[in-house]
């Protein structure tokens, strides 16, 4: 069944009750849910609590669900719900990216557990699997927080259980789940201070509601026509949930909205090309460029201003992409990497001799990767802010290290959960995670490593070490917002100190000065890691100014190469 058919289903009036759900229903539901999620991916990405341009919840959930669907399509018995959901759960675990992706994988695992040993299920089975999905998701998170995707799955499960008392029609149940999920998403804004400040709903929760929405539409359509249920899928003041190729949705404004099935198929052929370049202005229209270019690939990132736009897209056709982009401005720093070849490189690299302990780390760019390698990381997975590595990506690196035990340093708060899943899927290797939330913590942890000591000792040393460093990430706000009661205007320079926006100002130097002045305990050493868009000369001037005003502090400047954050600093 195609997404077009699903969207056309609104015309009919009468429908038969659906009393049993089979594997075919679930697979169709997951496929449509995937295309709905893809259509809404950018919108979910934009629901970032910080006004910084690295929201990736939508992309992470999409890539996770895509991995689930790919595996579900090859379930050993496609007509059986338990077989299809078990395959989906496994696929999602391997493909899990970002915290929302990991929680989504746990939700799918819960569904699979809830239907275990059943080839079809009735309303009570559906309600049971929702309850299990909620329970497993809560267990996966160490400190469950309300106002997140967890709240949405819990309220969805409550709706499913309540509906199962009143009806034997699974469609009625699912409609109610969708309605209550969206209502729960609306309420998240008031449940979490950060969401209220930012004036957004929770991105992961919204993503889950979109998945239920797409899934339900598919199930509603199977076995004949049925009435369109008026589902309130519009958030106040926000664009409606986008439907893939729905007649009422503007086709071009949706990232990759036309490529739902194609994207899945492409993955079977290869991994595409990771294409990066800068477009030089003047007079660039970033929004228009984004619309033009993001449809030509996946994981699109098009950011910048009228003078300079940075593009990062995974595409099967880099030449076509470059041709389009070069009409808009002069291209610079063009880089095309064959991800299929990279993938093979990883697989074929000769295995080094097995060692007792290895360390795998994550870095957002080559500068940080080189630093981490020079400090003794056995393997560094590229990813982080714009592209969270999946559990499978991390697993590959862990296996490549060929050690009895591996310590994983995620170096990004959004990679921690995916990292924590690696131990479950790693064979012949014990994987421990030291939950480093940023690069400065990761570097401190690595410095504390003692290759001659055991894994427990090393984990303890690293955990101690990460408390001795303070991380400062400096960027520009991408929209108006508030933080800790202060207004932030689009374009303001903001400093995020250990996950909190603490300083707001007009220029980088002033904001960094303010951060340094605000420190209760004066740092002795400040390491400045410049981003990929900051030249060495510009960063050196900034560091010289800092040295002048803080003569008793030692400053070091290194190239981190990270995107989005012109400066990352560690204070210690």
């Amino acid at each position, binding site marked *: 069944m195609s997404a077009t058919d699903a969207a056309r289903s609104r015309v009919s009036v009468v429908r038969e009750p659906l009393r049993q759900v089979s594997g075919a229903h679930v697979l169709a539901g997951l496929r449509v849910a995937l295309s709905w999620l893809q259509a809404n991916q950018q919108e979910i990405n934009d629901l970032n609590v910080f006004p910084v341009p690295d929201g990736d919840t939508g992309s992470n959930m999409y890539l996770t669900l895509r991995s689930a669907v790919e595996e579900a399509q090859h379930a050993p018995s496609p007509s059986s719900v338990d077989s299809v959901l078990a395959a989906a759960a496994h696929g999602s675990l391997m493909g899990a990216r970002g915290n929302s992706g990991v929680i989504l994988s746990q939700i799918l695992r819960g569904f699979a557990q809830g239907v275990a040993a059943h080839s079809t299920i009735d309303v009570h089975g559906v309600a049971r699997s929702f309850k299990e999905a909620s329970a497993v998701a809560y267990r996966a998170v160490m400190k469950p927080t309300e106002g997140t995707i967890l709240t949405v799955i819990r309220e969805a499960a409550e709706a499913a259980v309540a509906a199962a008392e009143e009806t034997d029609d699974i469609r009625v149940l699912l409609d109610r789940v969708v309605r209550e999920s969206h209502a729960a998403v609306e309420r998240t804004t008031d449940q979490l201070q950060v969401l209220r400040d930012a004036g957004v709903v929770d991105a992961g929760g919204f993503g889950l509601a979109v998945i239920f929405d797409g899934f339900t539409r598919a199930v509603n359509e199977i076995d004949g026509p049925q009435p369109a249920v008026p589902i309130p899928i519009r958030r106040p003041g926000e664009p409606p949930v986008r439907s893939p190729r729905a007649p009422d949705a503007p086709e071009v404004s949706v990232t990759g909205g036309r490529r739902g099935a194609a994207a899945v198929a492409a993955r079977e052929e290869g991994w595409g090309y990771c294409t990066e370049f800068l477009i030089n202005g003047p007079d660039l229209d970033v929004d228009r460029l984004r619309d033009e270019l993001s449809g030509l690939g996946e994981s699109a990132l098009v950011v910048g201003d009228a003078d300079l736009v940075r593009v990062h897209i995974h595409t099967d056709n880099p030449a076509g992409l470059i041709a389009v982009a070069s009409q808009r401005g002069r291209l610079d720093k063009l880089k095309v990497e064959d991800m299929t070849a990279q993938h093979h490189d990883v697989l074929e690299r000769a295995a080094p001799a097995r060692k007792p302990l290895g360390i795998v780390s994550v870095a957002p760019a080559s500068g940080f990767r*080189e*630093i981490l*390698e*020079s*400090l*003794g990381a056995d393997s560094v997975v590229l990813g982080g802010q714009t592209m969270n590595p999946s559990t499978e990506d991390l697993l590959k690196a862990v296996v490549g290290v060929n050690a009895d035990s591996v310590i994983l340093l995620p170096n990004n708060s959004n990679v921690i959960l995916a990292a924590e899943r690696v131990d479950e899927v790693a064979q012949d290797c014990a994987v421990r995670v030291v939950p480093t939330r940023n690069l400065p913590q990761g*570097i*401190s942890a690595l*410095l*504390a490593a*003692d*290759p*001659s000591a055991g894994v427990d000792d090393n984990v303890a*040393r690293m955990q101690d070490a990460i408390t*001795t*460093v303070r991380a400062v990430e400096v960027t520009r706000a991408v929209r108006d917002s508030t933080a800790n009661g202060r207004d932030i205007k689009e374009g303001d320079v903001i400093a995020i100190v250990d996950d909190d926006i603490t300083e707001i100002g007009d220029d980088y130097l002033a904001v960094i000065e303010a951060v340094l002045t605000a420190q209760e305990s004066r*740092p*002795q*050493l400040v*390491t400045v890691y410049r981003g990929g868009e900051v030249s060495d000369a510009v960063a050196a001037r900034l560091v010289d100014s800092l040295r002048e005003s803080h003569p008793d502090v*030692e400053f*070091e400047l*290194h190239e981190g190469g990270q995107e989005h954050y012109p400066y990352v600093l*560690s204070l*210690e």
Partner: protein
Amino acid sequence: MIHVVTDSTSDMTQEQARELGVTVVPLIVRFGEEQFRDGVDLDADAFYRRLTTGKVHPTTSQPPPEEFNAVYKALLRDPADSVVSIHISSKLSGTLQSAHLAVQELGPERIHLVDSESVSAGLQLLVRGAVDDIAHGCEPVEVVDRARELRRRIGIYVLLDTLTYLQRGGRIGRAQALVGGLLNVKPVLVVDDGEVAPQGRVRSRRQGVDMIVEQIRKRAPLRALAVFHTGAPELLGEICSRLTAAFPGTDILEGQVGPVVGAYAGPGGAGVAYEAAG
């Protein structure tokens, strides 16, 4: 009477040596063709100036056996006299080997050699312990036994500004593990079983001092502490105030690391020796 002999790596000032009645045998420092007796012809301040500004990297060597021979002979003029000679770890220097050759010549009856299995501040704490024991009337054999017991309770941690000097001097050994790659790191070393071993690497002095304080805390209660710097009096001040807060009431002996050890440690570092209560 029992005489105590040590070597210049105990980093005792001439004045301290006089007060304690200890004879210090100097090791040799060379800058190219120029040769100095550690602490005699070259003091610490002049040495660090030269180390940081000069082009030639210094080398060091143990005192010649004749030096020990002369010292022992002078101290043993009276047949009732004996010598307890306490020195830098034999795993770090050939000094004890030289002393041993002198003993071969003079006969072992009245000269007792002790391997401190330590250096600098740690060696000095051990020497001071022996001086105390002699003042309390211990016989030479007792002094030696007590020193061998005491050395198990003495340890030393070292915070260096850089590994460069250890590397240049060819003595990096297991501390190779602390090399910092693209970032500047400060190594923390421990003298363990007479050898220099890596303890950890940090990026700021404060982290290094924290690490040392935490390590020493594991050995509390303490009887004494000693902090010796390598041309970095401000670091010594920082460490002493941290130690005073962490171990109130414990005496802290302050000092400066001399040329021989300083040639490997490099400027900007410090060593902290502790003596755990018995």
